[in-house]
Each structure stands twice: as C-alpha cells, then as structure tokens.
C-alpha cells in the first residue's frame, strides 16, 4: 500500500476559528503586566497586549469566532492571531471547530494531533499531577495510582479485544488493530510485578477491585471500541500524543525523578519505565489513526467528527481517572490494596 507522509503541523488559526484557551492556565495581573502560567512556563504581556489578552482570556471558550472577538474588542483579526499563535504552537490554544474545515487526510491528521496534544496538556495540568510531580503525594496515592493504572493496562484485554472484534474494515486494517492489541495484551504483568516488588502479595493485588472512576474510564473505552475503527483508533492518539518517539533517556530521567521523590515505590516506577521503553521499541507513537490517514482508506467527515468527540470525552474520563485516585487514596481511611465485597454465609 503506497504511503505518503502528511504534514503533522497544526493548521493556522483562521478568522472563523473558535479558539479555546487551555482551561488550566493560571492567570495573574500585576500593574500593567498580565501573565499566563503553566507548571513549566509563563507568558507575560505588557501594555496594550496585556489589556487585550486579559479581556480575551475570559472569552476563549471555543464558542466565538476570532473575527467576532476582534469586533467585540475593537481590534484587528491579526492582533488576535499575534497573541494566540505562540500559545497555539505550545498546544495551549485549540481551534475548537477545525474538524468541519479539514479537507483531506493530511489536514485531518495534523489538526487531530494538535487536538490531542491540547487535551493531553489539560489532563496533565490537573491537581493530581501537580501534587505527584511536586513530591507531595501521600504513600497511598502513589501506590493507588500504580494499582489503578494496572487495572487500566489490563483492560486492554477488554477494550482492545473489542476494538478488533468490532473492526469492520478490510483484513489489512484489522490486522493492524489486532497486532496492536496482541502487543499490549500481557503488559499488566509488568505493573503487577512492580507492585509485588514494593512488598504486596500478588493475590491481594489480583483480587483488589478497581475504583469506580477507573471502571468509568475502562467502560468508556469499551463503549468506544464498539463504535468502529476510526473512533476506536482515536483513543490512542490521546494516550500517545507525541508523533516522534520519546527519547529513552528522557523516560528514564522522568521515572528516576519520581523514584527519588517516592523511594518506597521505586520498583513500581521501574515497571512504568520498562513499559514506556517497550512502547518506544514497538513504535506505538505511530498511532493507528496516523496509519489510517496514510493509507488509501478515507476518513469520512462523520468519522472525523466522531473521532474528535471521542477524544474530548476521553480527556474528561482521564481527568476523572486521576481525580478518583486522589479522592479515594488521599483519604486517611483508604485501604490499599482494596478488598472486594464477598457473600457471607451464616456463621
């Protein structure tokens, strides 16, 4: 099958774009300086730019076109492009209505990657990540994250198997989907081994029921798998938003840092690291949907719109997943590992 490489850069904003600003950006004003801040970077605006950005920031909700905003604030479209383009390049601004304008596989692919990167940033700006990365997470939260993530990884045997079962495309595409599943099917063992090496009995780990919020994520993935190949494939673009392989050194450094902050969980983070390196080796950053875009199979406008809806809903479910871990395991009474309810006989 002939393959061509579509451009993966995000389409530029247009006058008819409806920009959405990352809802997790912190804002502050000091005199005539207005600042937007993430965990890792900040953007400062002065003077007229500060005035405009401060007003704009309240209105960038994905529901108003740039040309309308420009009229509202008495500025040119270009003034707004100048402010938003640098943020867009950092995946902090989403063109919320791009999918209706995407023309062809190339445009879809580039804009879809930008969509996934935007929501990935939103997920990783949630309070759970701020706490964990600062080193302030409690023991149960860290271990609970490992346990719930193990459930999620094992759920590949639910939603990825369903993705194969409901792939009504041709055998070539179904083999891509099947191979992806086969490569992930037994990865939960890596995480179970990691938790066992943290000092827990394997039987207790295997019997621990997932949190309701973990099941919510898994069930959402199960339901998405039934929708068809494009919708199903879309989920992996959010899970792996980088189109280039992450450098092994960067992976080791990231998990090494976490091991240093939470030494009791080092075996667990070793498992995370091992899994991430396996994914790099298997080239899982080359997502199913990018392969579909490079193939002669066309993605219909309805499938494209469905893929975007799936990614936006999946982002919410990942937020729920991490929030649930913090909420449950952050309580002093939280049990780790959790115990399932059992039928009790009469004594």
């Amino acid at each position, binding site marked *: 099958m002939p393959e061509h490489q579509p451009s993966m850069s995000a389409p530029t904003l247009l006058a008819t774009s409806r920009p959405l600003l990352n809802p997790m950006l912190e804002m502050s004003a000091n005199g005539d300086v207005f600042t937007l801040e993430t965990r890792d970077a900040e953007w400062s605006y002065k003077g007229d730019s500060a005035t405009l950005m401060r007003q704009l920031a309240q209105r960038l909700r994905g529901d108003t076109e740039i040309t309308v905003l420009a009229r509202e604030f008495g500025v040119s479209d270009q003034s707004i492009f100048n402010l938003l383009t640098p943020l867009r390049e950092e995946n902090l601004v989403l063109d919320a209505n791009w999918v209706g304008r995407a023309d062809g596989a190339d445009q879809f692919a580039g804009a879809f990657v930008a969509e996934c990167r935007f929501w990935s940033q939103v997920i990783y700006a949630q309070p759970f990540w701020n706490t964990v990365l600062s080193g302030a997470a409690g023991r149960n939260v860290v271990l609970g994250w490992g346990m719930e993530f193990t459930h999620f990884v094992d759920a590949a045997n639910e939603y990825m198997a369903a993705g194969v079962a409901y792939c009504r495309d041709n055998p070539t595409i179904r083999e891509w989907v099947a191979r992806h599943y086969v490569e992930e099917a037994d990865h939960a063992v890596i995480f179970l081994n990691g938790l066992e090496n943290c000092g827990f009995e394997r039987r207790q780990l295997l019997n621990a029921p997932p949190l309701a919020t973990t099941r919510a994520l898994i*069930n959402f993935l199960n339901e998405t798998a039934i929708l068809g190949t494009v919708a199903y494939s879309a989920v992996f673009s959010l899970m792996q938003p980088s189109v280039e392989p992450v450098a092994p050194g960067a992976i080791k450094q990231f998990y090494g840092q976490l091991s240093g902050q939470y030494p009791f969980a080092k075996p667990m983070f070793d498992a995370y690291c091992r899994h991430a390196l396996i994914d790099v080796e298997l080239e899982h950053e080359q997502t199913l949907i990018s392969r579909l875009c490079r193939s002669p199979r066309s993605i219909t406008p309805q499938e494209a719109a469905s893929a975007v809806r799936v990614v936006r809903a999946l982002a919410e479910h990942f937020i729920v997943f991490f929030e649930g871990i913090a909420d449950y395991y952050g309580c002093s009474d939280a049990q780790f590992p959790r115990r399932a309810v059992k039928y009790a006989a009469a004594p």
Partner: protein
Amino acid sequence: MAIEESHAKSRKLPFLPSDICLREANGCVELARDDIEVKIRGGNPADIHRFLTNIDGTRRLDEVFIPPSVGAQTATTLLQQLIDANMILLAPGRESPLLNSADFAKTCRAIFPQWKRRLFGHSLWRRLADGSASRNQFIGWLLENYHFIEGVTIRMSVVIAHCRHAGMRKHFVKHFAEEFDHHHFFMRSLKALGLSEAEVFAQPPLPGTTAVLNHMRDCGRSDPLCYAACSAFLESTGADRGAAKQFFAQLLGHYDNRGGEVINPMIDHVGLDEDYGHAGFLEKLCNEVPHIEVSRADAALQAALTLVETLEFWATDIERHYAVQSPIMAPEAPRLYRGLQRGAQVNA
C-alpha cells in the same frame, strides 16, 4: 473442641469485609466500620496487620500464613473474637460452591440499607435538601437525572439482549416496557425551568452519568444477576415513600418558582414506579434460578457496590461541575470540565 478444629471442620472461609478500615496506628492494629472500632494491642502490629490482610475468603485458617510472632493459638483466638464482633465474616466453603439464590436476595436486602445511607450521606443530597446547592447545581442535577432515566433505554436493553435465560429475561422485558418512556416526566420538569427539548438533547451527560449507564451496560453484558443486583439497589433507593415525599417538598420550597410545575412531574414518576411494584424484582429473578455459584454471588454483590461507588462519583461530578459551569453549554463548544474558574483567578 478447639476453635481451630471447629473452623477446619466447618470448611467456611473467613474474610475481612470490604467496608472494614484496617490500619496500623499508635502502636496497635485498628479495625473500624462506621462508629465501631476494635483495637488489637500487644504483639507485633505489622505482623498482625499482615495476618489479617491475608484473611481474604479464599483460604481456611489452617491454610493462611501465620507469622511466627503471632502463632497459631493467638491467630485462632483473635479470629474468633473478630467473628464474634462481626469484623470477620465467613464465606461458604469450597465444598459448598452453590448457594440458594433466595438467600442471596436476602443478603442484598440486608446490605442495601447500609449502602443507601452511605450514598445519601453525600453532600449533594444534603445541599439539595437544605437549599444550599446553587440553582445551577439543581438544574444540573435535574438534567443529569434526565439522562440517567432516559438511559434505561441503553442499559436495560443490553441485559435483555445478552440474557440467554428465558425465565430471567421475561422479567427484564416487563421491567423495560414499564420504564422506557419515563424520561418524559423529567423533560416536563426541565421545560418548566425554561429549557427546550433541543437544548436538553444538545447537553451531553457528565462523565459521572455516563459512568453509571456504562457500568450497568457492562453488568448487562457480564451476567444478568449482576445487573439485577444493581437494579435492585436502584429500586431500593426510591422505595422509602416518606423520605421521597419529604425530599421533594424541600426541593419545591427551594427551587420551584413555578408553583410545582418543576417538581410535580418527579413526584408523579415516583408514584408510577410504586404502582408498578418493582420492589420485589430481585426476588422474582432469583426465583427463576434457584441455585447460584458462590463466585457468581460475589461478583453480583461487587457489581452492586461498584454501582454505589459510581453513584457517589455521579453526585460528586454534579456538585463540582455545576458549581462553576452553567448547565446550558454553547452549541458545539467543548465542555469546560474541571477547568480553573477564570474570573476568580486574576489577582489585580
């Protein structure tokens, strides 16, 4: 007869229930449930803690590893004391893989009131009742209720489609026929609040609502008994007519400025459900399958408890989201979910 011998003879499998909080604290081991606490002093707390976490309903006492510092005699004495205190329960032995499904239904009825109290202890229910929930939270709750009630079409249909037992299936079919159009009650309430049908259809359910529906769909695909246990818990939450009447009266006072047009359809809905007599649904289903495996009973109970946890998340989701967002989204705009509240952030 020595306690250890009697346990071995009975073959029952001791387990620490899922709702017991077990912890090491202040140099001892504590077991707590609701307002009951048991403290085990003396011995090596870490070893006692480890021993108790291994009491998981899969092994007899003589099969469980007992740390040398605890010893067999102490282990059996401790176990019996915890059984007497209802902190350790007994699962049927491996030689008794089947149980009477009527007993399973009775177990559910015994456990559900405790789970119901836990669920309705959530702050959302208290705040709706005392009027401290905002108007957006009330409308949001009503909107999510609409999606949940309408969602019977996509959850109960799954258990019917996957149920191969004709006797059980006929009860689900009857129940579905009595429920599938009840969303119209909630639409009437929403319209009384000024929402159009198009606006309601355009608002996708929150992840919490989707989670409840998807959990029940998952149960429906897995085992009709799992679905039935969940359904029975849901029915039990609405079974207390007096409490429901009081709750609706409170909502009427706090949120209904349309002389009852908003709340009365929900009261009518509860009345209709009562007329249908769904209260004995689980018992009717169990009657179709006189004996079930213990493992199946365990799975069904866990499914119902997961539903309780999911409903707690549902309440949390409504409370958190509608505290900062309007129930009515702009058409086609992505939902702002758990974003920072913009206006409040900017420090001049």
